[in-house]
Every structure is written in C-alpha cells, then in structure tokens.
C-alpha cells in the first residue's frame, strides 16, 4: 500500500513538473513582446535596427529615448487628459447607473420596464453603428465635439446600460427590502435610504464596475479619436497613434512611447492585481 501511495505521489510530482515547464514556456511566449520593448527602449536607433534581439546594443545603455518621446508625444498632458476623463467618467457612471438601477428594481412602473428593456437590447449595438450619427449630431448639428465634457458624457451614456444591468442584479439579490422598510419607518426619505442604506451595500459591484469601466475608458481609442480632434485634448491611445504616425521610423522613440503608454496601467496592476482579476471575472460571468 505504501508503495502504491509513493508511486502516486511521484506521478503527481512528475505531472506537476511537466505542467510547470509548459506554463513557463507559454508565459515566456506571452510576455516576449513586452520584454522585447523593454530591451530595446534602452538602445539607440542604430542598435535596434542592426540587432533588435541583443540585450545591450553596441553603443551601450541609453536613457535618451525617454525624455524625447515624452516631449514629442506630450506625455504628461495626454496622461492628465486620460486620467481626468477616466476618473470622472467612472465616478459619474457608478453614481448615475446605480441610482437608475435602484429605481428600476424597486418599482414596476411602465417607464422602468421600457428603460431597462431598451438598455438590455442596446447591448448588441456595436459602436460602429453609432459613430457616424454621433459625429453628425454632435459635430455637425450641435458643434460640441472637442470638449472633454462631451467625451465624458458619451462615456457615461455608452457604459450606462451595462453598469445599470450589473447594479440591477446586485440590488435584486444583495439588498434586503426589510432594511429599506426599517429606514422608512425611521423617517428616511427615498433619497436618504438610497445613499445611506442601499449604496454602501453595493460595494463589491461598485468595485467591479469601476475596474471594468475604468479600463475600457482608459484604453478606448475610436470614440475619443472621433470626439477629441484637438492636440491638447489627446488621451494616451490617441497620442500614441499620432506619435507613431509621425515618428514611426525613429524606432527608439517609438519603443519609449509604447512603454510609456503601457506603464501607468501596468503599475496599477502591480498593486491592484487581485481586485482587477476578480473584478473582470465577476463582471464577465454576470
């Protein structure tokens, strides 16, 4: 018997060793492109062109690519634009969508059913169907493109259906109606009940929506590129695209620009990794 157990344990160890080797190989494949960028960002243009795979170039280690790329893509300005737009849109989406979800869950009015139905149905509409009318309406007729506020408003509108849907589910299952009744008896208004009782109970969903939406807003390219035509309003994805269009041959600068564009979110991932992985999973599974 001992012999059999030992054999099984040894088999499991061998199996795990094989799995780990496969995982490491796959992992290297997955991060290889990033590693390549990191290696080449510290080389001169000539060294990258002559041998992109060498760890250190013939002309040695250099940091010159960073300041120049930062200046040319106006990194801090586009970083600030991205940050302002992402943070504001995420906060407004969470506040407004959760409030809307609350009134939709707790009332059986016709307007509630109609709004929720339209939101669910609208989830199949791809952005490409809306982009031409949006440019025509907001650019041609209203003339309010090229403002951060317009983009924030659009982000809120586009993400409202998914966010409302998720809060709808959360309020339905996690907020006991008895708590709200207790609040009413104690003299709370609907508004107070919502902010003092319901909203604090939604924390896990708030985290999920915040992570999913913030990542989507931060990385979005197509909508911001249509709305923000002015250079001083560029977000990081647009600045990267514009930078590549102008300096694509200056490969050292391109490497620095790409690394700079990735860094903010990678640094955030380092600290919030667990929350991001959990948030994305629970957001997708709903």
């Amino acid at each position: 018997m001992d012999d059999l157990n030992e054999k099984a344990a040894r088999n499991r160890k061998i199996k795990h060793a094989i799995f780990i080797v496969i995982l490491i190989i796959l992992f290297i494949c997955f991060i290889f492109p990033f590693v390549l960028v990191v290696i080449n960002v510290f080389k001169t243009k000539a060294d990258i062109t002559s041998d992109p795979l060498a760890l250190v170039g013939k002309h040695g280690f250099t940091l010159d690519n960073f300041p120049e790329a930062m200046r040319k893509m106006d990194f801090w300005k586009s970083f600030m634009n991205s940050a302002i737009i992402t943070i504001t849109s995420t906060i407004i989406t969470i506040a407004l969508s959760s409030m809307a979800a609350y009134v939709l869950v707790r009332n059986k009015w016709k307007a509630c059913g109609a709004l929720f139905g339209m939101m669910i149905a609208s989830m199949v509409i791809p952005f490409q169907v809306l982009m031409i009318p949006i440019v025509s309406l907001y650019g041609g007729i209203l003339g309010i493109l090229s403002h951060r506020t317009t983009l924030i408003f659009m982000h809120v509108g586009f993400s409202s259906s998914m966010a409302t849907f998720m809060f709808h589910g959360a309020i339905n299952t996690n907020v006991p109606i008895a708590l709200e009744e207790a609040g009413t008896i104690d003299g709370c208004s609907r508004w107070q009940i919502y902010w003092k009782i319901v909203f604090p109970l939604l924390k896990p969903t708030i985290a999920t929506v915040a992570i999913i939406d913030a990542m989507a807003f931060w990385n979005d390219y197509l909508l911001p590129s249509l709305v923000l035509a002015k250079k001083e309003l560029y977000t990081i994805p647009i600045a990267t695209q514009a930078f590549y269009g102008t300096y694509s041959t200056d490969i050292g600068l391109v490497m620095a620009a790409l690394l700079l564009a990735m860094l903010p979110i990678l640094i955030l991932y380092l600290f919030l990794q667990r929350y991001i992985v959990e948030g994305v999973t629970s957001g997708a599974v709903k």
Partner: protein
Amino acid sequence: MNTNTMSYKFRQFMMFAGLTTIAFASVVIIPFIYGLYLTLTSWDGVSRDKPFVGLANYASTFADSAYWQALGRTLIYSVIAVVLVNVVAFILAFLVTSGVKGQNFFRAGFFIPNLIGGIVLGYIWKFVFNRALVAVGSAITSGTATSLLATTNGAMFCMIIVSVWQYAGYMMLIYVAGFMSVSADVLEAARIDGCTNMQSIIHISIPLMVSSFVQCLFLTVTRCFMVYDVNLSLTNGEPFNSSVMAAMHVYNQAFTYKNYGTGQAEAMILFIVCAVVGVLQVYIGKKAEVSA
C-alpha cells in the same frame, strides 16, 4: 404621502434615473434612430443639407464588392481566431487550476495583454513581426527575410496571432471560474469510480462548464467581429487593402471617402449580424442553463 400619483412617480423616476436616461438616450437611442435616417440620405459630412436618396445607399452597399470582401475576410478571421482563443484559453485554465505552484502568478501574467489598449498592442507586435522576427529569420536563412506583415496571407495570420494572444488570458479567467464551479465531490466520486484525469475533464468538467463555453464563445465572436484598434495599428489594412476588416471598411467609407450614407448602411448590416449573434447567445445561454 400619496405614492400612486403620476407626478410622484415622475419625480421619483427623474430623481434617480433621469440623468442616466438622458445620457443613454442621447448617445445610444437617438443616434441609432438618426443613423437609420442617415442611411436614406447622401451626406458628405460637410454640407448642412442631407439630400434624401431613398434606398440608394443600400443599393451601393450591395454593389460595394470591397465591403463584402472585408465582411468575408472578417468572418474567416473571426472563426479561426475564436476557435484558437478558446482552445488556448481552455488549456491555460486547465493548467492554472491543476494545483501547481505559483498558479496565481501565471493567471495574473497571462491576463496582462488585456490591460493594454489595442493601439499599443498592435504597434508592439508590429515591431515584433517587422524587426525581431525578421532578424531571427535572416539569421536562420542567413539571407534577408521579409516580414509576415508584408504578405497578404501573412498579415491576416498576424492578426489572428495577436488576437489569440490578446484575448486568451481574459477567456482563461472565465474558464478558471468554470473549473472552480465544478464541485470537488463530483470529481472525487468520478476518481473513486476509476476515471482518469482526462476522462473526468471530458465527461464531467466540460459538460458542467457549458455556460462558460457559451459566454467565452460569444464574447470572442463579438470582439473579433468588430475588431478595429489592432487592425488599425498592426496592419492598417496593408498590404494592398488585403487586411481591411469590416469595421475598418465602414470607418474608411464614412470618414475617409466621406460617403456617410453608404457607410452607415454598411454599419447597419454589421448591426444585424451582431443582433443575430446576440439573440443566439440569449437563446443558447438559456438552453445551456437548463441542461447544466
């Protein structure tokens, strides 16, 4: 207070859902309806008036062979990418739930491509294909290798590789959730009955994970079908417009060639495809739930 009057209901609704309704309606509902109207006009994007042309835009859509080629190309790309993404994601999920050391580290690592926007990912891979792999190829053949991105089939092949790399980590997380939801009791019962690992995956885990499969399949189908960012940065339709996907074709039709009406009509056809996929998802999702 009477809570059954129209004015009370209206005030409550507007207080909580008013702003959301306005934002949602003005960027989704109104543009959608206005877009339907645009398909019936020929607008050049500049002039104030939009001449009414009836169904002429749909006629030119059907005559636009480049559009149908792009659509066909997108379909082929989507089918291959969806299958590969899901196979890779399932294998990754299996490996990172098998109890090996450091599985959380691997999970976090495989997810990294999803954190970064398509524009940046496309340019990184452009560098990999155009410089790094060319350098490897030249070293092996000791001549000058050409980039995969410079050949028609090669460019599409690159799009597929990047998509698999981009989405596999995300789908892996959903499959991981699926693997975790399979109860350990059932698996142990199977092991006692003499199932091998392979058998218990095929006959127990996979049937119990149907909802994960449905979800991943539809997520990848819609994402691949509407691909734009990676297409723009990685290939930009090159070489010779041989890698223009449907979404990029619509964008070019409207914003490059200024045929807004035709562009919108072509977008509407994409919408119909997405709507069919969406309805299928709900339908199949419901069925899968019953059987699981």
